[in-house]
Structures are given as structure tokens and as C-alpha cells.
């Protein structure tokens, strides 16, 4: 059949109109907690999201297969918002209409636009490793919950580890900060500047232009600066390019560190052996040893119910997903403890999420305590090193420089509060 204009136009109209006509799916279960997981699978975060989402869905499957949590089943609606605001807002509103009490967009631009809406609608907005860093201040952002260490805390952790390496004294050392030249890349600068004053080391920032697939002009300058330590800060392709250039310029890998955005997948691109020694911040344990990951392997993946390729189970971003899912589920458990019969609403879940105390998910996370004031969870993380095959923890869970981080958080949350009135 030759496609002519009339067939094309009428076919398109029929396809686009179909969702409006077809019957909506009805849900039989009465005790369901709905989450909206509209994330970016196609535009910028791509493989990060698919690994993160795989972890989340596997953990939810694990919980649901065991009969749910306190009688509630978790229903996570996963969709793609492609980092596009109209699509993300549509997904958020759709979720709200269907009764979702939590939204996890995993995208900074989307989180920014959803913050005022979530605060109005009283829907818990999870902004793990994204969104506004000052959302850690729960008094100003009651319904925005990062539940994870923000970029300021990560910078504080890295510098404290450097200080430990130099036996407590960074005086006169030279630390280079190579970052993508976007708001995200510049975010840790205030913390680094305050610390450079306090610990009297020399801070040299080197910005590279986004998206960062060519950084060959920057790294020779970094080498010539003869730094004692290097921090590189980017996302996506910028990370692997930065690491490749660092290796090419002969920088000692055991003096180079990045944020949470470094994973096994990046190491495959860079070369597993060449990158030996490079450091990253770990918000949760990686690998397959933690108990939740073992459980998932046995009860979900082993039974063919895994959400994605088995090889990704236990990689860094997969475990971030499990970490966030575990925190959400723990929030539901706490909420059900406080009010067993619901009703399931945003405030109901919020009560639970802000009551999480010393939760470690059987060793997957550092002890995390979320309160109504602190939505970051205590600010603990650890530094780990790439040994050629996996990331090996170099420290125990620790928190560092939280006074400086909270100074910065309060500065910005105060400002947000002022414009809100």
C-alpha cells in the first residue's frame, strides 16, 4: 500500500487520539503507594538514568515480591521526560492526578521547576544528586528531599581526605579544580574557596567549555601548574574525557579525585588499568556484597524478574538507585508505623521520610538520619579508589566540613525564603 497524504494524516490523528479513547487501567489493590519516576533516559543523563532506574525498580520488585512494606505495595510509574520541562511537568501533574505522593526526576533543571510546585502541592520531591543544594534545609523546603550528600558536602569530603593524606596539613599545597563551565560545575567553588582560606592551600580553578568532549587545551596547563591534588567535576562525557586527558598528561592517578559521578562504565571507556588509583566519592557501597544487592540477585534477578541486564547489578549508579529506593521504602515503613491506616498522601509520606533514623539498609548506606531540619541525611560518605577492577573504599564512612556546608546552605535557603513571600 502506498502511503499517500490522506492515509498519513488520518493515521497520525488516529494514533494520537487513541490514548484519550482507550480505557484507563484500573488498580485493584487498595493499599498502594504511588511514585512518579519520570526521568531522563534519552537526552543528557542517558546511561546514568538507566542504571539508576534499574536499581530502583529491582529494589521495588524485591519489596513487592516479599509482600510489600507494612502492607503497602510500591507502584513506581517510570517514564521518560528527556530533560524537557513541558514533558516533565506533564508527567508530574499526571502523577499527582493519579495519586502519586513522591516524584524523583533525577534532573537538576526539572527539579528547579518542580520545587515551587511540590512545595504547594505537598508532594515529596526527591532530588538525589541533583537539584538545589540548599534543599538540605528542611525548614525552608519541607517537601524537597535530597536524601543524599549534596555537591558542597562531596567537595568537603574530598578535601578532608586530602588533608588526612597530608597528615592534617594542606598548607602551601596546590589543588587544581577542573570543572565544566556550567552552574553545576561551578557549584563547589564557594566551599573550596572557604576551605582554601581556612587550610591555606592554593586553589586553581580550570573551567572547560560544555559539553566537555574536548579538553585538550586545559590539561597541559594543569600539568604545568604541578598540582599536589586534582579534583575534576563534570557529568556524562566530560568525565571520561577529563580522566583520559589526565592520564595522557601523566598526572598521578592516586592524587586525582572526582565527585559521585564516576562509575565502572566510565572506567571501561578510559581503560581499566590506566585509571588505577583514581578516587571518587561514594554515597553508598558499590559492588555486589551489600545484603540488599545479594537479595536482589537471589530473589529478583535470579527469578528472571530483573529490570535490566544482569551485568549492571552492583555497579555504582545501580547501587545509587537501590540506595534511594531503600530510603523511600524506609520512609513508607516509618509513615505506616506512625499512621498505619493512611490515608496515603504527601504529608503522610513526608512524616515517614523525615523520621528515618540511623538507617543503613544492611550496610549499603552510611548511617542516615533524616529530620525535619536536615534533609541531607547527616552528610556521611566515603572516598574510594579504583583498583583496576572495582572501587575499593579508602576510608570508612565519615562526615567533614559540615559547618561550612551548612553555612552555605542557609545562605541560599534564606534567600529563597525571602523571595517566596
Amino acid at each position, binding site marked *: 500500500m502506498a502511503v499517500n497524504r490522506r492515509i498519513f494524516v488520518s493515521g497520525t490523528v488516529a494514533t494520537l487520539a487513541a490514548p484519550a479513547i482507550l480505557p484507563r487501567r484500573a488498580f485493584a489493590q487498595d493499599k498502594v503507594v504511588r511514585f512518579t519516576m519520570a526521568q531522563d533516559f534519552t537526552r543528557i543523563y542517558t546511561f546514568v538514568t538507566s542504571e539508576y532506574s534499574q536499581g530502583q525498580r529491582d529494589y521495588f520488585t524485591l519489596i513487592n515480591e516479599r509482600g510489600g512494606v507494612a502492607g503497602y505495595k510500591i507502584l513506581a510509574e517510570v517514564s521518560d521526560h528527556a530533560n524537557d520541562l513541558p514533558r516533565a511537568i506533564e508527567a508530574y501533574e499526571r502523577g499527582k492526578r493519579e495519586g502519586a505522593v513522591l516524584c524523583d526526576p533525577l534532573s537538576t*533543571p526539572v527539579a528547579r*521547576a518542580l520545587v515551587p510546585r511540590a512545595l504547594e502541592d505537598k508532594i515529596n520531591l526527591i532530588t538525589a544528586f541533583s537539584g538545589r543544594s540548599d534543599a538540605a534545609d528542611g525548614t525552608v523546603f519541607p517537601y524537597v528531599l535530597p536524601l543524599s550528600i549534596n555537591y558542597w558536602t562531596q567537595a568537603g569530603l574530598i578535601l578532608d581526605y586530602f588533608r588526612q593524606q597530608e597528615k592534617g596539613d594542606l598548607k602551601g599545597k596546590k589543588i587544581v579544580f577542573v570543572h565544566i563551565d556550567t552552574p553545576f560545575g561551578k557549584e563547589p567553588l564557594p566551599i573550596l574557596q572557604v576551605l582554601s582560606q581556612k587550610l591555606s592551600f592554593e586553589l586553581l580553578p580550570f573551567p572547560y567549555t560544555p559539553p566537555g568532549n574536548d579538553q585538550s587545551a586545559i590539561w597541559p596547563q594543569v600539568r604545568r601548574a604541578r598540582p599536589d591534588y586534582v579534583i575534576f567535576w563534570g557529568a556524562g562525557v566530560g568525565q571520561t574525557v577529563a580522566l583520559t586527558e589526565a592520564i595522557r598528561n601523566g598526572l598521578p592517578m592516586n592524587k586525582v579525585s572526582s565527585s559521585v559521578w564516576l562509575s565502572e562504565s566510565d572506567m571501561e571507556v578510559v581503560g581499566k588499568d590506566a585509571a588505577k588509583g583514581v578516587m571518587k566519592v561514594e554515597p553508598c557501597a558499590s559492588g555486589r556484597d551489600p545484603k540488599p544487592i545479594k537479595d536482589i540477585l537471589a530473589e529478583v534477578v535470579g527469578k528472571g524478574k530483573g529490570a535490566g541486564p544482569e551485568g549492571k547489578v552492583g555497579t555504582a549508579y545501580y547501587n545509587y538507585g537501590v540506595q534511594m529506593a531503600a530510603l523511600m521504602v524506609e520512609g513508607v515503613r516509618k509513615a505506616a508505623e506512625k499512621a498505619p491506616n493512611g490515608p496515603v498522601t504527601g504529608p503522610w509520606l513526608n512524616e515517614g521520610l523525615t523520621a528515618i533514623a540511623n538507617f543503613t539498609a544492611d550496610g549499603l548506606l552510611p548511617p542516615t538520619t533524616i529530620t525535619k531540619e536536615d534533609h541531607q541525611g547527616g552528610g556521611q560518605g566515603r572516598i574510594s579508589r579504583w583498583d583496576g577492577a572495582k572501587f575499593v573504599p579508602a576510608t570508612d564512612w565519615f562526615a567533614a566540613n559540615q559547618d561550612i556546608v551548612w553555612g552555605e546552605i542557609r545562605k541560599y535557603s534564606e534567600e529563597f525564603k525571602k523571595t517566596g513571600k
Partner: protein
Amino acid sequence: MFYRRTGIRHTRYEQERQLFPLHFDRLLILLVLFLLLAAPLVLDRFYLAGYLLPWLIWSSAALGLNLLMGGAGQIHLGYGAVMAIGAYGSVHLVRAGVPLEIAMIAGGLLSAAIGMLFGAAALRVKGIYLAMATLAMQYIVDFVISQTPAISGGTLATLQVPPVRFLGISLRGDTETYYFALGVCIVITLFMLNVGRTSFGRALAAVREKDYAAQILGVSTFKYKLLAFWVSSFIGGAVGSVLAVCYLRAISPDQFHIELSIQILAMVIVGGLGSVLGPFFGAALILFAPIVLNNLMGFAASSLGINIPIDLRAHLPLVAYGALVIGFLLYEPLGLAKIYGNIRNYLLVWPFRHAQR
């Protein structure tokens, strides 16, 4: 049969020249207007905030770009930057305590001034070279905004829009923002409908068809090219501030990158260059086709029990969306507005196909 053109005899020039000479068209417009006005009372908030509001705002922006591209024939790849200037200008003014009515106009004027500055390139270059010049504008504006903390709003690079009032009405709820965006859209649409009948619109058309021929006929291409950029940038800036105040509520540089410019450009081209109706159709297709296709896919995956991996599920709608855009450009190069035009032409004389139009 529907349009009932028989018996319509214009006895005065005003009747002949009115925007919608046919009674049926006037009724149709009133019906659409009535539906849009009644929408907040009937529709769920989900449709209002998720579909109608962005549709109105993006259509308004596409109308502004259409004046430049369809009206004056000047290509512009940096319309997102134009909107950014308006958004940032007005939000800064609003934060400083200036009323929104004035801030919006001032944002528009700021966009117009800067837009015209870059538009001056159009005096010397055309076509693909002008595209490059306006693309440069996009990147320069992006760079200036994100590199100046005073503009972008510090380390977090987010400017919160404070609660605002327009003519004494607080723009907080969905209904208020919807009516505000609808009002702005109606004003812009009326302007676009009328511009074709003015000397300004005719001069733009002359410049579009051949600029030196227009110059020979006594139409100053210098003046009208700059004016086209001025007007279109003013509309872009004003719509930018509506976008910031009604929809985004917190602005950051990444919301106005090249993606926005390309999106609006696509709306104009798919909708139909030079048509007033086109941008509305274009905006609907470009904004909502990915959403609808995605939901369709999700529906198929969950209720029909087809197990599609999420990566594939996320990418298939994009493939379909791309095919759709190419399909429309192949089968109807004059845009979606032309499809409506074809249907209307057919029905004008239906059921007498052989009748003269």
C-alpha cells in the same frame, strides 16, 4: 453547505476587508474562544497546567518568530536567547519591586533592543549566513547569562520568581496563570492577524519576496528588516516573561538554550510559515507528540503485557516523533495549517465538488 457563501453580498469595503468575512468562520472563532475561556471551569487541573498552559505560551512564542520568518523571511536560530533576555530582564525587575505590567514591557523592550542589534547582521547577510549570525547570538547570550552571577543568580544559578500581581490579580493559581497566558496569546494573535493588512505587513512581505526589488519599489529594507527584528524580539521578550512568571516560576540559564530555539523553529516550520494558525498546530504537535507517544507506549507496555526494556520504551517514541515530523514535511510541506486549509477549501463548496471556489 456549512459555510453558506451564497447570498453573501458585501455592499461596503469594510465588510469585504474584515478579518473573517464568512459568518461560519466567525462562529467557529467564537466557539474556540468560548471553549478556551471555559476550560478552567470544566477541565481538570492536569490538562490545564500540563497541556493548555504550555501550549498557549509556546504558541505565542512561535507566533513571534513566525512574524520574522514567515512574514519577513529572515531566519532566526536564537529565539530562545531572545526569550531569555526578556525573562531575565523582567524577573530581575519584578524582584526589585517593579510591577509585572511594567516589567513585562521592559523585558520586551530589552529583548527588542538586543535582538535588533544582532538583527542588524541581516542587513548584510542572508539565508544560511544569517542563521549563523543568530546562532552566535544564542551562544553569546547563553554565555553572558551563565557567566555573570549578578544575572544568573549566584552559585545555584536559579532565580526564583516572587509572587506577582497583574492588574491587581495575584498570579499564583493555575486558573489565574492560564487566563493571563490566554490574554497575552489573544493580544499577540490579534496583532498577527491584523499585521498582514497594514503597510508594515505588506512591506515585510515585499522584503521577504526579494529585498532589492522592495528597495527599488521604495520600501526601505534597512528600516523594515530592523523593524521586523524589533517587533519579533519584543514579542519574544514579553512571552519570555510570561513563560518565567506563569510556567517556570524559577529560571536558570539551561532553560533557554539552543534546544528551546530549535523547538520553536520546528513549531513554525511544521505549523506553516507565514500562517497565523500554523504556530498553534505546530506547538501542539512538537510539544505533545512526544508526551502522547510516550504514554501510548507506556500504556501498551503495562496493560497489554508487552515487556519492553525501559531504554527502548523511552527511545521508540522519539523515533516515531522524528518520523512524524519528516512525514508532515514530506506530505504537507506547507505545514499543518495547510491541512486545515485543504479541509476548509473542500467543505467550502461541499457537496458540489465541481463548483468554482
